């Protein structure tokens, strides 16, 4: 199966990034998608294999809430973090790669991608979409 990959390099140690990804006080600063907030009391982190990872994101414009429920499968500070979505079974694996120059590459792999909602698109955009897809799955996204 295709594994989706997202890569980003941060100027921080693997240990600090691991801490940010697994501490509610940090997560509340960056977790929710743009336009949402994830208040501290909405984040559950039980950092052990089998422990819960739950975040309820609140939409800032209409107050609606969306809860992501996951269970940690692997917790290996500071190199690896794996969780599984309870609803969709999607696996998210985050690897922290020390670049030994003060920077760390955070690699997010996702597999068992879930169902999506339809978005009709004109045939004209097809080739662009195809190229984008190919670039994504062959290179991963580097932002």
């Amino acid at each position: 199966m295709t594994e989706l990959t997202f890569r980003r390099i941060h100027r921080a140690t693997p240990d600090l990034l691991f801490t940010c990804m697994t501490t509610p006080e940090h997560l509340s600063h960056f977790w929710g998608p743009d336009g949402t907030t994830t208040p501290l009391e909405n984040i559950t982190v039980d950092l052990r294999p089998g422990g819960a990872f739950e975040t309820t994101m609140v939409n800032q414009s209409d107050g609606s809430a969306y809860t992501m429920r996951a269970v940690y499968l692997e917790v290996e500070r500071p190199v690896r973090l794996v969780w599984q979505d309870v609803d969709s079974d999607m696996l998210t694996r985050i690897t922290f790669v020390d670049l030994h120059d003060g920077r760390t590459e955070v690699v997010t792999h996702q597999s068992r991608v879930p169902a999506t909602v339809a978005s009709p698109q004109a045939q004209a955009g097809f080739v662009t979409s195809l190229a984008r897809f190919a670039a994504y799955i062959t290179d991963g996204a580097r932002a």
Partner: protein
Amino acid sequence: MAVLEDDLTLVFTALADPTRRAILERLSHGDATVHQLAAPFAMSQQAVSKHLLVLERAQLISRARVGQSRPCSLDAGRLAEAVSWIETNRQVWAERHDRLAAHLETL
């Protein structure tokens, strides 16, 4: 039209192969028979037929029952759904890392 999880898996699997993506791109210009699709590739019609079966199962193409030729046509909607999911997902992680970078500045 919501896609079942297994359906989306079929789409991603089908799209992971460069030959199948090339076939889809060809079909984006118009319907084609197996013979026409095989022409630009250095492979047999049998090999192309196998790729078409994968694409058909993923419902990325449909094949008409017109005599022996069975021309293939593209179902662009299915791909759009898969790309839409990927784009949304990528955006979520990109923005998350933008905010994380800003947060790291404050530590």
